[in-house]
């Protein structure tokens, strides 16, 4: 009975994931596509838990359906507003050409992928599980995923923070930041909500950061929560507050990478390989790096959400949406 119900759950979830992927992409209505994509992220979160991957589920919850969803909504709305201003037509698009060619190519690819899945040897060798667990006591943390991210493969994480920074550089050089709409009234309920939940979110972010050393959690989860605090505050108070000076954005986003690199080079000067922690103190160094990375990841994700370089804070209340058509109403 239990086994049957578990199988039914898995099959239903897999079907839902496939249906959501298909329907979020096949609709002409972009908002519908985005909302279905957010629901897709929720179902993926359930699938990660089913696959014993709570770390991925946490990141999926925070990043994929929180930050990416807000980013997509903002970009869609900005595009819509600027098209309305330019009298562009969003719905008139050329017909997709020759789908059958694509479909036959993809059928062949799907067959090959399915064959590859079924030809994986059934006796599971465990991959890198055995060495990863063997070295865990020496890695300084209790969670094998954190150990893989910040000890065994710390280079990956270093470069990943670098990629986030590069994305900010790219976004800043092609666009001005998207600003919260001014004409939409906020109201006491929203202000009260922001006042209660911003500190709560920061507290929970700290909890996830600390949790990462022993269980599922870590810098990315905590950083995404910090970014969510930023998104909430920008949306709520954005039209009435000054834009912070640009040096704060710059230092906030490179802080983590700086600490990470300084420590890596410091270890090299002590005669070890880059990011090779000294025996016994690995746990402390990992916590230092993770805390610095949390600040930077949060800041970077917030800057990415803003979708461009923030405008200079010369006067108060400058956050007038340039593409805002509302004033004409």
């Amino acid at each position, binding site marked *: 009975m239990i086994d049957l119900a578990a199988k039914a759950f898995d099959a239903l979830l897999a079907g839902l994931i496939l249906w959501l992927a298909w329907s979020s992409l096949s609709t002409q209505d972009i908002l519908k596509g985005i909302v279905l994509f957010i629901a897709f992220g929720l179902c993926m979160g359930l699938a990660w838990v089913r696959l014993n991957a709570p770390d991925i589920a946490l990141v999926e919850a925070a990043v994929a359906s929180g930050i990416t969803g807000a980013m997509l909504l903002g970009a869609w709305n900005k595009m819509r507003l600027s098209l309305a201003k330019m009298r562009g037509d969003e719905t008139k698009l050329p017909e997709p050409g020759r789908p059958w060619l694509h479909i036959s190519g993809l059928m062949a690819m799907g067959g090959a992928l399915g064959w590859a899945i079924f030809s994986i040897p059934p006796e599971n060798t465990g991959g890198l599980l055995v060495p990863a667990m063997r070295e865990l006591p020496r890695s300084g943390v209790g969670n094998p995923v954190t150990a893989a991210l910040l000890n065994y493969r710390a280079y990956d994480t270093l470069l990943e923070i670098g990629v986030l920074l590069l994305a900010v550089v790219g976004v800043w050089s092609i666009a001005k930041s998207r600003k919260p709409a001014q004409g*939409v009234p906020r109201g006491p309920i*929203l202000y009260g*909500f922001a006042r209660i*939940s911003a500190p*709560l979110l920061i507290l929970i972010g700290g909890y996830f950061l600390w949790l990462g050393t022993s269980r599922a959690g870590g810098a990315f989860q905590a950083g995404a929560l910090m970014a969510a605090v930023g998104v909430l505050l920008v949306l709520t108070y954005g039209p009435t507050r000054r834009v912070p000076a640009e040096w704060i954005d710059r230092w906030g986003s490179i802080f983590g990478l700086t600490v990470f690199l300084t420590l890596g080079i410091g270890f090299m000067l002590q005669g070890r390989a880059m990011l090779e922690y000294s025996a016994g103190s690995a746990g402390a160094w990992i916590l230092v790096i993770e805390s610095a990375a949390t600040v930077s990841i949060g800041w970077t994700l917030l800057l990415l959400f803003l979708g461009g370089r923030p405008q200079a804070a010369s006067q108060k209340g400058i956050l007038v949406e340039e593409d805002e058509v509302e004033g004409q109403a």
Partner: protein
Amino acid sequence: MNGIEVLASIFIGIGLLFFIAGTAGLLRFPDVYMRLHALTKADNLGLGFISLGVGLQTGSWSIGVKLLLIWLAVLLASSTVSHLIARRALRGGMSPWRREQ
């Protein structure tokens, strides 16, 4: 199966009923304002019962506090968001549904 487990399953069962009712409301009610009922009342009560049941079953204080936090966060979020969306719909000129229409 001891008493606590029976109580936990009863709570989870009540929660399930509220979820089913909420979804039925979401599907059957005629306009966006009525569908808000399904969102803000039935489902949040259902989540409350389910977290009560799960909390009884695990019997751990740290998880209990987390469950309470989850419930409060969802209550806060759904009441704020539905207020904002309903107000925006009303000011955007969407009039509530009436029977005689």
